[in-house]
């Protein structure tokens, strides 16, 4: 049986290892094809390479010999065609190749808007999603004193932090009235905003990019905002989210059904026989809704399940209580359950440490059952918070036991009893 995996990101590699766990090289040959890098690397660590904290090689989660030991063939090439009826793919350099089972784990690409001037700008517009993005950022940083970053999300902050590390003056354009309403409530958003500003960043809330102005060489020279202000910059970082990579499928012989992403059912099967999709590129049909999940943890989970599904196991993706984590410069962030999009009538308990950037938010629904947590500035064991949500614990019960879920370093446990509290109904 030949298992072919397109994409060597976390979803693709997890699937490959899952298949190998069950079948030895005699039963299954496994090929992973990527055009981006020779080896799987941790996309989430790109910022640390950019900031000189890690060498490129350090980004690789597995020993290079591991692929050889596991008999996983790595191919550096690009898939340009899929013919599911013929069970074959075509590679740009290496031609046709047969498969028995195919996994598309091609990820997502940065979302882009064709602002006026973008087409005329040949150089200086960057993202921070792929290894090639990192190459571009590094090449441009040498000749950059001022930069503008657009997009108040998680990658935007990473890019801002990296540019500050290199001594670049950064203007951060955030469309929303406060930082990241998709994940945070106003109090936390404003705290993060101030934290970013305290690192010497010019944070502009409620301002949008209006036009990109290229210089004579074609490299970005300035931008204007929707207030008409012109801001000089030699780099323009765009971090307004990612979208599944599906456009390349249109021109293939047998394009799988796509919407926002490649349509899959809860076993990660596409509408094509013997073709699966997993990770950031897929749109999963849960019956009542479809979901595109584009974070590290979901891609990892998709990959494992898709691997099992390709082995013939009966897989039904049932996502656990949502969790995610991030770090806004120095402030660590853990979120569990439903927070920003909590239904009307929910009640929130907001806790803040006086004079410190430490907050907690606990959300309960109308029945006083806990549904979400947003924790900033200290460490939490999300597995305990998930458990409380599953157990539908009431607010007072959770608040009294909050210390059970603390995960701070020894001697560094945050004194929860010193925090101010405020209850509000949404």
């Amino acid at each position, binding site marked *: 049986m030949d298992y072919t995996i397109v994409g060597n990101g976390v979803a693709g590699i997890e699937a490959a290892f899952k298949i190998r766990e069950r079948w030895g090289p005699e039963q299954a040959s496994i090929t992973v094809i990527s055009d981006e890098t020779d080896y799987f690397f941790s996309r*989430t660590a790109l910022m640390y390479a950019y900031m000189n904290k*890690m060498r490129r090689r*350090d980004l690789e989660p597995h*020993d290079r010999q591991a692929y050889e030991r596991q008999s996983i063939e790595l191919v550096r090439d690009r898939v340009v065609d899929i013919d599911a009826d013929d069970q074959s793919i075509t590679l740009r350099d290496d031609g046709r190749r047969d498969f028995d089972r195919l996994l598309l784990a091609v990820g997502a690409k940065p979302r882009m808007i064709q602002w006026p001037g973008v087409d005329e700008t040949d150089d200086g517009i960057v993202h921070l999603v792929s290894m090639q993005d990192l190459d571009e950022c590094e090449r441009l940083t040498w000749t950059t004193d001022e930069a503008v970053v657009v997009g108040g999300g998680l990658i935007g902050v990473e890019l801002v932090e990296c540019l500050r590390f290199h001594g670049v003056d950064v203007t951060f354009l955030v469309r929303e009235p406060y930082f990241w309403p998709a994940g945070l409530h106003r109090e936390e958003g404003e705290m993060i905003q101030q934290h970013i500003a305290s690192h010497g960043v010019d944070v502009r809330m409620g301002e949008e990019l209006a036009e990109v102005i290229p210089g004579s060489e074609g490299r970005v020279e300035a931008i204007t905002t929707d207030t008409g202000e012109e801001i000089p910059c030699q780099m323009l970082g765009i971090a307004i989210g990612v979208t599944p990579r599906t456009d390349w499928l249109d021109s293939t012989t047998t394009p799988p059904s796509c919407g926002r992403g490649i349509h899959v059912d809860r076993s990660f099967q596409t509408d094509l026989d013997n073709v699966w999709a997993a990770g950031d590129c897929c749109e999963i049909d849960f019956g009542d809704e479809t979901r595109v999940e584009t974070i590290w943890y979901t891609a990892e989970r998709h990959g494992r399940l898709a691997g099992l599904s390709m082995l013939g196991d009966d897989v039904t993706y049932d996502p656990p209580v949502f969790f995610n984590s991030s770090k806004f410069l120095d402030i*660590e962030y853990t979120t569990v359950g439903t927070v920003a999009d909590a239904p009307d009538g929910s009640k929130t308990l907001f806790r803040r440490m006086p004079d410190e950037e430490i907050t907690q938010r606990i959300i309960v629904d109308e029945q006083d059952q806990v549904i979400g947590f947003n924790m900033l500035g200290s460490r939490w064991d999300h597995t305990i918070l998930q458990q409380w949500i599953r157990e539908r614990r009431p607010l007072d019960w959770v608040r009294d036991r909050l210390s059970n879920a603390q995960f701070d370093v*020894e*001697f560094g446990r945050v004194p929860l009893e010193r925090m101010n509290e405020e209850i509000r109904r949404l």
Partner: protein
Amino acid sequence: MRQKGTLGWLKHDVTHRGITAWLLTGALLAFYLVLYFTDWLTPIAKSLGLIHKWNLYGALYTLAIVTGGIYVIAKYRDNRYQVIRTSVVIFVQSTLAFSVPYVLELFNQPAVYLSYLWPLEISILYPKNLASAPVYFAVWAVVGSILIAPILGIFYGKRWYCSWVCGCGGLANTAGEPFRHLTPTSQGWWNFEKYAVHITLVLALLTTGLVGASYLIGPEQSPVLASYANSLQSWYGLLVVTILSGIVGVVLYPIGGTRVWCRNFCPMAAILGLVQKFGRFRIRVKDDMCISCGMCTTYCEMGIDVREYAQNNQDFTRAACVGCGLCEEVCPRGVLHLENEWDRDPQESLTMGALLEESYK
């Protein structure tokens, strides 16, 4: 990518095995050769009012730990484990390892180093030294080395010594901070480490045993044994104590990372590592939260592939781990937690096989 400018170049070059790193290594080697094999430093020590060149070396060593320690405390000021641990390192070095023995010497008392225990400081258990040492120190040398060190190891892991008290670890975790990511993590190094560190331990035990037996039996009764004991003692002193711990351990900082001695050769680390394996200390991994970024592995000065455990949701106790807590500090998602707990994840294996093959790769 390095920062811009000459300073950016220098910072990168010296911490990434560039030309300046090699020059620094050369300078350190020259200094140590002069220190150990000439008397050129004696007049300098005397002109500074010190008794001998080893006081001068002690003063420089302490200065390096204090300066580096202040840098580390400032860098990790938000992490109380790092602040407290580094403060203790500075305190122990400047008192027990430097000023106490110096003051004793000033008053013509025998200098004692209370923070250096056997088998790291192998000579304190040589019977001749035990007999001539002040009684309190002889008692401390025996009880501290044989009983207290391993017992504390059971309860708190080897970190209580290796990264809170010991001067070798102290220098690594303070002045050595900019070089810690250079420790190699390859399979080849693991193979070398597991043999080298245990061979040194066996040598240390053998040397102590032979020197002790020769003393008890008496050199007149068994001159052959006495001559073996003598030559083993002096070979061990030259090779392990002087060259490996004294010189190589520090000279290789800019090239091979900070814990070359501790990881590959220190017999004390070997014993405490075995003890730690059966004690309470472990690193807990928060399930499913690892993003495989690899900061932990990069900054592990003992070359442990921490990421491999973290991304497999596996709590672990590695014999090599000195519990410096830097993996826990640099993890951007707060996945790792150092702790002392008896109850273990059933996945954690305690067999000898697991011990020998504990490298994850």
